[in-house]
């Protein structure tokens, strides 16, 4: 892979920091990747090659690129971090090829942090990021270097290939209203950053399981003159870490000698984060959790698994009355039965059983327990790790599939 043509110019949403990515070992067309920064952020931003390398590394690893040759200098700490990212992803997905070499055209150059440390956080409007911002405000007084001054809002990752379309722009406008209100409540400036990074690889599973952290965090290198630390809230807690694109083994490794990246709140379950936001009614009323947000008249659809789970979390924490960004807040056992617990999220549901039962919703607790059992059973069956799997393996390996053929003859 070659990264060149690093440039700055006018973009659709402000000043554009762009580069061209040319694939060398995989048959993929060249792609221009960019971030658009608003006037305030762009004022002291820099088209840092580190940003482009951090963004392109995981897609390059996936597609078997042997090297990443980049125009300019690269921070050796970032390069070491990316090697570690490669090692971790290869240990999770053993079929992944070798880790690409980083080849800076100019030199290895340790990035220099700004003299006065300063911090920013990532805001999506979801539970994890709301907890991140409110706990930061509680923990650190104004003037402390760890206190956030800006809320970085990454846009475009949900619209691969259509980041600048009128549809996407209208969605940004709708989401911006609650996010600005939340930022104002926390006392930080909302800073939208729009990007087309998913054009490097628009596969949704790849994005979620490997690329998420890099896609969110890489652009922060452009802002190393403004912030010495950026932080994002953990998606999965430390007690249940799974291979995921945003992970404490990956995210800090996208940092450089000038920019530290913190993956925060590993110690808390999601339902505990909701409980800690109990007094933050302005934020809870503007919560954005839906994968399809903005959805319909409300921001959240209220029907998808994530929305329903969030509503149950709010019920379990006694804050359901503040859930104003949903069309309806009524969740029944029937609602739970109609859901699909995907991506291993039965863990999150499992953390809700006791708290929701303690709130007098034994009907929901029982429905969740049944659903978890069914989900685990289904997965074991699909993965062949239950007793039926043992029979299937025995039939395949020892009997040459005779039982399967007989079964098909009898029941097809």
């Amino acid at each position, binding site marked *: 892979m070659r990264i060149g043509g690093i440039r700055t110019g006018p973009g659709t949403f402000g000043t554009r920091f762009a580069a061209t990515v040319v694939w060398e070992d995989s048959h993929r067309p060249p792609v221009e990747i960019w971030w658009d920064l608003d006037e305030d952020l762009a004022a002291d931003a820099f088209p840092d090659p580190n940003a482009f390398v951090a963004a392109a590394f995981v897609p390059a690893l996936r597609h078997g690129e042997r090297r990443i040759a980049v125009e300019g200098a690269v921070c*050796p700490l970032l390069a070491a971090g990316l090697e570690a990212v490669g090692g971790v992803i290869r240990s999770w997905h053993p079929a992944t090829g070798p880790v690409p070499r980083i080849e800076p055209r100019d030199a290895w150059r340790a990035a*220099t942090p700004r003299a006065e440390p300063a911090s920013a956080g990532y805001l999506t409007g979801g539970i994890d990021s709301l907890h991140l911002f409110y706990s930061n405000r509680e923990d650190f007084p104004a003037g402390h270097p760890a206190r956030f001054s800006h809320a970085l809002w990454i846009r475009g990752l949900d619209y691969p290939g259509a980041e600048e379309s009128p549809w996407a722009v209208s969605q940004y406008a709708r989401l911006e209203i609650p996010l600005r209100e939340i930022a104002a409540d926390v006392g930080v400036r909302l800073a939208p950053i729009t990007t087309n990074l998913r054009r490097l690889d628009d596969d949704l599973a790849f994005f979620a399981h490997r690329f998420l952290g890099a896609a969110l965090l890489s652009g922060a290198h452009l802002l190393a003159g403004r912030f010495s630390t950026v932080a994002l809230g953990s998606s999965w807690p430390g*007690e249940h870490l799974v291979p995921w694109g945003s992970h*404490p083994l990956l995210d800090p490794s996208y940092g450089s000698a000038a920019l530290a990246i913190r993956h925060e709140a590993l*110690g808390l379950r999601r339902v505990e984060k909701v409980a800690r936001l109990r007094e933050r009614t302005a934020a809870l009323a503007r919560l954005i959790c839906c994968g399809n947000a903005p959805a319909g008249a409300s921001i959240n659809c209220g029907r998808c698994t994530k929305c329903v789970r969030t509503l149950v979390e709010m019920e379990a924490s006694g804050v359901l009355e503040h859930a104003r960004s949903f069309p309806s807040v009524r969740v029944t056992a029937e609602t739970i039965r109609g859901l699909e617990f995907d991506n291993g999220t039965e863990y999150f549901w499992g953390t809700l059983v006791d708290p929701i039962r303690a709130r007098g919703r034994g009907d929901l607790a029982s429905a969740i327990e049944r659903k978890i059992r069914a989900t685990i059973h289904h997965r074991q069956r699909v993965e062949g790790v239950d007793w039926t799997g043992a029979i299937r393996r025995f039939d395949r390996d020892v009997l040459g599939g005779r039982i399967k053929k007989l079964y098909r003859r009898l029941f097809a």
Partner: protein
Amino acid sequence: MRLFDLRREETADAVRVAATIAWEDSDRRPRKIWAEVAPALGPALTEELDGFAVAAAVVAQHHGERRLIVEGTLCPRLAEGLAAAARLLARWFSAALPAPVIESSRGTAPRFPPPVPRAGVFLSGGLDSLFAVAHNRDRYPREHPASLRDAVVLEGYIFEPTDDSPRARDYWRRTQKATTAFAAAADLHPIFVRTNLRVLEDDIGFFCAKYHAAMLSSVAHLLSRRISSATIAAGLDAANLRAWGSHPVLDPLYSGSALAVFHEGIETPRIGKAGRIAAWPEALASLMVCTRGPLGSGSLNCGRCEKCVRTLAALGPTAARAASFDETDLTPALLRKLSTGLHPWAVADFWSEIVESFRARGQSELASAAEELVSRAHVADAWRFHRGWKGMLRRLDRRFLGSALLQSSRRLRSRRSA
């Protein structure tokens, strides 16, 4: 567990910070814990309980304490990190030892880092810590804030500071010799810290699997008036990570708002580290991996224990001869005698790399002997963790038969050998 009574004690030889821990749920005596430095470094020591809280939290969890209450304030970032670390350790090792609640009697108070950032590294003289320094020197110009300036060397890390045995005294003598020479070569300021934090729980399994990064981080916090970051050199690489007392997810959780704890070097396997040290003659001469002893020869390493042999193999014959080992020749017979030790998985992981490098050097007999060692380590690991059908049988025996099968087997064997 209560952590209280932070105090500063000064003598002609040392400045010490100390605190007391008292157990609430475990039937153990209160203990005074302390760390001390030379008087000239006294101003580096903090007057907060944060440092002792890190070690105390992990030990409290190990002994089933339901909470750790710090009588004073605690850094909010550290408090959150300790709670997260406790849950992570519970997840890794035993849900039966739930995470203690971390409390502070006067709430949380953010700490401010020193006005000028100053980077420190823990230096043992081993391959990992020498590589951490080498890599740092490769990456950063000396004026960069991340360029390492202080090397923290602990007395009391492997042996208790009051251990007056010949082996302990020899180990500390060799550590001082190796680290002083290396610090001078690497332009690092050595800070020798003596501490009894290890005595809180001296079980070696606990120390390795859960505690050692917590102990190091404790000391780093105690020095946070001087250093703003502390690097702990990675022992495992990214491809072979395990639940372990120093880990890239765990160690940074011991950071506070005045002190960042870094776990560095997971991108480089042990062979790569050895290659880098082999190319730095001063580092090679100071390399000290051996905990055996006392060594009467004046060398830093015995050259015969598993860790020494592993290091010699990784260095290769030329570099091995330039390093400070009593013996440097490797033979297949020597490799066949090596023990797979307390952590056979680590022996298997490290030696798997070495098999390849023996082959690359055309040392096929050594490669075969190393492969045998890897196989033995896998078998020992499976035995230890009750894997395979034999493990299943042992579990059934222990659970349902009260270990009757095990006892019969031992009786039969002892009769046969008699």
